[in-house]
């Protein structure tokens, strides 16, 4: 207890067991509100979801709430082609929206790092899309990509390309949704990279320029290696976001039936879960989907961790 008293020469120190308990207990007392809230709003719902996933609960079927069916929902899940299809969509849209986006963000950050005129306005400007509402963006982009009277099809028509039904084919819908995701997140990630770039000495760029390196070479050989930890961070955050993709696919479908297109072309796992829970009333099965997603995310996180360890290990 003397070390605590050292900074407060005028105060009486507590000695003995009560003092020790006091000092040891304080940190736990201070962080307990967070954990209590997590227990109530995080852990309890998770455990309850596990419980519900073992039942056949459907509110439209009286008596199903108490009907235990054990792992039947999970066997159904493993054989459910809609679930695997949704998983494929989630990975696919995730890749198509994340990889070009992060590359673009990297490049934008590199450009914004130069001493441009009006660079403050530019740096703030790239973040503007991030502060718009997901719903508004999805609805407006939905109109852009409308089949009959959408501006995108109009522009394509001007260059001689036939109207595309953006919701009918898998690739078209993935592109449209990725456009929304990229529009929102590129600026955000660019600023993260930009912040990380501030720790890279400008002298490196100057001397590279003196040595005759082009802007592209500077980018590839100075910027990217310096940002490796930041890139890993943004990849992880983007992966999490990609798995949670829900608002855009839900609103892109004009039928509002949460089917992700007539043939589930762009139905992500969370959207599939939403459809089974809310529209079909399959509370038990939807809970199993949620836990299935948890397992998939767990696997991806482990893979991520191993890769990160390998990359860091190389240094």
């Amino acid at each position: 207890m003397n070390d605590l008293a050292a900074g407060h020469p005028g105060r009486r120190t507590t000695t003995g067991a009560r003092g020790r308990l006091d000092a040891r207990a304080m940190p736990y007392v201070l962080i307990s509100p967070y954990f209590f809230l997590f227990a109530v709003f995080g852990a309890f719902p998770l455990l309850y979801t596990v419980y519900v996933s073992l039942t056949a609960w459907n509110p439209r079927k009286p008596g199903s709430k108490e009907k235990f069916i054990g792992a039947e929902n999970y066997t159904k899940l493993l054989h459910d082609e809609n679930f695997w299809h949704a998983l494929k969509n989630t990975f696919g849209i995730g890749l198509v929206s994340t990889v070009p986006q992060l590359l673009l963000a990297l490049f934008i950050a590199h450009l914004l790092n130069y001493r441009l005129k009006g660079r403050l306005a530019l740096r703030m400007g790239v973040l503007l899309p991030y502060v718009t509402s997901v719903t508004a963006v999805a609805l407006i982009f939905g109109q852009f990509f409308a089949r009959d009277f959408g501006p995108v099809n109009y522009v394509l028509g001007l260059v001689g390309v036939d109207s595309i039904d953006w919701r009918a084919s898998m690739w078209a819908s993935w592109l449209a949704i990725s456009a929304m995701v990229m529009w929102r997140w590129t600026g955000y990630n660019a600023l993260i990279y930009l912040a990380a770039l501030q720790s890279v000495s400008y002298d490196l760029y100057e001397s590279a320029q003196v040595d005759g390196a082009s802007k592209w070479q500077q980018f590839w050989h100075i910027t990217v290696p310096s940002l490796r930890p930041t890139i890993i961070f943004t990849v992880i955050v983007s992966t999490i976001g990609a798995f949670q993709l829900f608002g855009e696919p839900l609103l892109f479908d004009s039928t509002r039936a949460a089917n992700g297109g007539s043939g589930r072309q762009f139905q992500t796992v969370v959207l599939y879960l939403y459809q089974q829970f809310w529209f079909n009333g399959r509370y038990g099965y939807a809970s199993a989907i949620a836990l299935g997603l948890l397992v998939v995310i767990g696997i991806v996180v482990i893979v991520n961790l191993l890769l990160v360890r390998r990359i860091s290990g190389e240094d």
Partner: protein
Amino acid sequence: MLDRRHAIAASAIATASLLLSGCGGSSSTTSTTSAAGTTTSAAASTGSTEKMTLTINVFGDSFPKSVYDAYTAAHPNITIKENRADYGAHHNNLQAHLAAGSGTADIEVIEIGQIAGYLGQGEKFVNFNDQGVDPAQWSPAKIKQATATDGSLVGLGTDIGGLAICYRADLFKAAGLPTDREEVGKLWPTWEDYVKVGSDFIAKTPDKKVKWYDGAGHVMTGILAQEKNTFYDDQGEVIAGTNPVVKQAWDLSVTSIQAKQSAALAEFSPEWNTGFQQGQFATITCPAWMTAYIRNNAPETKGKWDIATVPGGSGNWGGSFLTVPKAGKHTAEAVDLAKYLTTPDTAVKVFKEFGNYPSPVKTWDLPEVEDAKDAFFSDAPVGVIFPKSFANLPEQAAGPQSGVIGVALNTALNQVEQGEDPTKAWEKALKDIEAAAG
């Protein structure tokens, strides 16, 4: 030491207050809840004068403001708040709130395509049989649709859909088809004839961007709208996959899609709204409530529309009920309001304002209903066309997942419209139906 003790006390209080704020509920209103909740069979008005707001959740045009205003004028302590959501969100939220036991509005509108899903949860709704409601106001079919498995009457009928075909007389003229509604009605005694006329129209219409109808889902709905058993049999078993009636409706709809008759517009979407404005289709399967959508979406097409008899001569699509969930805080007052909103007088007012055909039986003979003509639809005699369509309808069987099955088939037709192989789309739909409702 004093500081440390104070610090511990302070953090303990902070923790405790966080815990309590998490657990705190609307304790201030428990007194009103118990007061209103104990009033059970209130045949007369409650006579309570405490100020309150009654909420009603709707998904479309249900009641004009004048109807609400007349009630609040007579009951100055009551404010009525209408919340509107789209059809899917409205019903999904209702189900979730019922399961949770709170969050429902005082009055919830439930559509006929969804109400079967709630009939197994009768205990969650006020039983109108105990509230002095006379079921003879409505047809036995309408009452049966709102009768829960435990025998309670959970819904009071608002409107009834009926069925007709609304068509653009000007587009018909341009394609050389007759425009008089009697003659048009004679063009399609059956749905097969409707498809044949459609091919005729597609061939002869000068503007090749105009299609025959808005979406194949509506054609299938129309065909099934006159059948007694579509997705469920009388014992409550799902028969959607094996019922020849459903397969025939599917096949006919697919034929019309392949004949390029569909504008492939998702119903009630912004594209569908635009479709009316741009005149992208010449006909639409038209229950009475659809006239309001046409009127609202394309006001500039007034006078260009008309209404003809539906193929097959009969059918019913839509119609809603007012329900009062027991979880509401003011069920007695809500029941009173619900009764007012479903009186024959109110139903006629709604009919005049929105075109929703009234469901109370004795309104059907009133001159203001029988002789009603709709100026937007070239003075079509709506008071005759719609009641004729449901006059001889059998009592239609429904089940808890009727809505889900309908959506699955609509989605599959949408797939075919987008170019998918019909057989594959059909099998996929059956698999999804089996998973959801089997």
